[in-house]
């Protein structure tokens, strides 16, 4: 799913970067300071998902679980998945630096859109029905991601169009498997900890009565702490 440095046209890179910055801005605005720990821990979980390999036919693929990230985190999925991609790029050499924006948009945007669409449905259903919706969300977010990847390739040159088609068809088994796994995960979450899906992160912490100072002031105090 990761596109590497050097493949895409500059216009696509810049466009992706701009959308990614906007998405990050929006995501961070929906992330008050006392929700950062919860989002960070969940972001780490989704990073770990990318290290889990499941068999597909004769080979194996790693999980992405972006649909579930959208369901659980909502808009905060954008910065959460960005952090994962940044760490992968820098420390594993997967993806690249200049394409970071495009890769983030390709993976996080579908997650957020699908998550917001299906969240209500999943929250209102019994575990079995919720599992079906969760499965659809899991498969759909991979499908939209592959379409986005195909579009970024297609916009960068005619020569990529067959490759873009290949990307889409090669990912059909992955969509199915992500769907199945997401369905089982949603089923378990509905049984064991339905709060995880029922609300957005803004309500996850059981104690909303936390009087944090306004964030601009926070940032300056933190600066002083580090630079003083």
């Amino acid at each position, binding site marked *: 799913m990761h596109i590497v440095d050097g493949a895409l046209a500059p216009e696509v890179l810049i466009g992706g970067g701009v959308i990614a910055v906007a998405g990050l801005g929006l995501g961070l605005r929906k992330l008050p300071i006392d929700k950062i*720990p919860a989002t960070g821990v969940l972001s780490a979980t989704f990073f770990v998902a990318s290290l889990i390999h499941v068999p597909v036919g004769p080979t194996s693929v790693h999980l992405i679980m972006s649909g579930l990230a959208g369901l659980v985190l909502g808009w905060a999925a954008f910065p959460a998945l960005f952090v994962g991609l940044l760490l992968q790029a820098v420390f594993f050499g997967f993806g690249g630096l200049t394409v970071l924006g495009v890769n983030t948009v390709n993976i996080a945007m579908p997650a957020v859109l699908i998550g917001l669409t299906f969240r209500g449905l999943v929250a209102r259903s019994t575990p079995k029905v919720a599992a079906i919706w969760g499965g659809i969300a899991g498969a759909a977010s991979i499908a939209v991601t592959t379409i986005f990847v195909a579009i970024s390739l297609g916009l960068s040159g005619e020569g990529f169009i067959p490759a873009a088609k290949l990307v889409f068809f090669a990912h059909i088994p992955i969509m199915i498997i992500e769907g199945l796994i997401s369905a089982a995960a949603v089923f378990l979450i509905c049984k064991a900890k339905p709060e995880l899906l029922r609300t957005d992160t803004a309500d996850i912490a059981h*104690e909303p*009565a*936390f*009087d944090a100072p306004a964030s601009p002031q926070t940032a300056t105090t933190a600066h*002083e*702490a*580090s630079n*003083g």
Partner: protein
Amino acid sequence: MSSLIDLNDISYGYRSGQKVLDRVNLSLNADERLFITGPNGAGKSTLLRILVGLIKPHSGRVSAFGKVCVSEADFHELRCRVGFIVQDPDDQLFCPTVVEDIAFGPLNLGASRDEALAIVDEVLDQLHLRHLRDRITHELSGGEKRLVSVAAVLAMRPDVLLLDEPTNALDEENLERLEDILLGLPQAMILISHDPHFRRKLATRTLELRGGILSTRPAKKCSAAERAKAEVMEANPDANAPDNADASASASVKSSANPGAVPKPNTRPDISPVAGQA
């Protein structure tokens, strides 16, 4: 009234109908090391979380240092004076490096960066952990994490310490080290522990939480092996001096009558087997 912390008639349940705590009373006096035991799921951790205001009880009152705590601001102030060492050190050490983690508390208390760093070094020296100063928290071993989490709480110079199962998964060496550190601290503490030996060494008073009721621990509740041992003890009462802490627990739960009368089993200053690189 000399008690540092008072809980009055605290009741709580996570779900409606559930009674995890049922009109619990507790008071902690200066110089006490109060142990709370009880079966899994009895609500011991819940009690401590209510004490520091992380959970609001359905009824009852928390007072600390002679002041009733009601609002979040009251509890914030309480939490700055009461150090809580939680069950899993991974939950407590959330900063990337040891020095940042230990400085977190003092910075929150309003210390400047340099003051905070000075406190960090002082605490690390006190616990002989200087060599861990610049390590990355997630690369520490389990025992090291536990000791650093104690340091992080001590850096706030708390007046009271709360420890939730501090001995879990510690080996004998680290256990002894922790015991020595705790014995050397002047603060009053509430400790939760299932380990009877740890309890016996440190406790000045032991309470048991069972069925939502907090009561002085009955002396006879012990396993066959311990019973056998107890019989042996009775035959030779002088052989094992620090062992009568349980028996000397005051009869009433709210024992503010004789606060200083309970003997501390051991009060040598903190000695640690590992030399720091000061």
